[in-house]
């Protein structure tokens, strides 16, 4: 399955969710096949398509420690009923780590949204 931008554009739908990360996070996630849960026991997704420059404000509350976290994006196909509403409308939460197969990935790489 191609994981490129054209495939992403052709595949967008209600069941496509993005995980924004940095280069190291992208490598770890793709090598491990898992988006690891944070200290609160959840992993985060969004359907917002935001540029690397906007990601910090839009997704991470302007936290300077998260600078660069929007530079890479992984797009997954996930059944929406597996996710819960987050603390703001553009945040979806998966209880625990999110394990995936490559068939679930429709794009990964540098942020294609600018």
């Amino acid at each position, binding site marked *: 399955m191609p994981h490129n931008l054209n495939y992403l554009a052709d595949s967008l739908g209600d069941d496509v969710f993005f995980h924004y990360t940095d280069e190291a996070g992208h490598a770890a996630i793709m090598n491990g096949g898992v988006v690891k849960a944070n200290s*609160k026991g959840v992993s985060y997704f969004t359907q917002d398509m935001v540029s690397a420059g906007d990601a910090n*404000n839009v997704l991470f*509350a*302007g936290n300077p420690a998260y600078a660069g976290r929007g530079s890479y994006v992984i797009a997954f196909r996930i059944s929406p009923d597996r996710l819960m*509403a987050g*603390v*703001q*409308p*553009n945040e979806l939460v998966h209880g625990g780590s999110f394990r995936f197969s490559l068939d679930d990935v429709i794009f990964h790489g540098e942020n294609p949204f600018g």
Partner: protein
Amino acid sequence: MFTVTDYQELVALNRALMEVRYLADNVDDATRGSSFLSILHVRVVDAIKATLSESGNAGQLSDWEKWQLLENRERELPRIMKYLATFWPGLPSEEGKRSVMISMLRPFIFTDDDLQRLISQLDEMMANGPSDIDE
């Protein structure tokens, strides 16, 4: 007068209130159940929606209105019930129960039926023992 009108700052305030009032562990009980924070939370969400309305952003406004629906609060509701269970039997009246439940449920949108159902559910849980209350 302290005012916040920037959309991202308001959203960050909402995040902080969501954490303190519902999601974070080890929050002081008085703080978690504060009626002042409840009212402030309503004002913050109202301000977010007003900002979006004034800027003509109908799509995002609709997203926030859906976000506010109690039926979508899958993570927060069990935590609200668990918190209320810690002092529920000591509440002296039905009015007292309604008051603390409403304070905790705001800023989410709920009906009178929701309110009565949750009060009855908590009464029943307490009658059956606190082990019935899980997150």
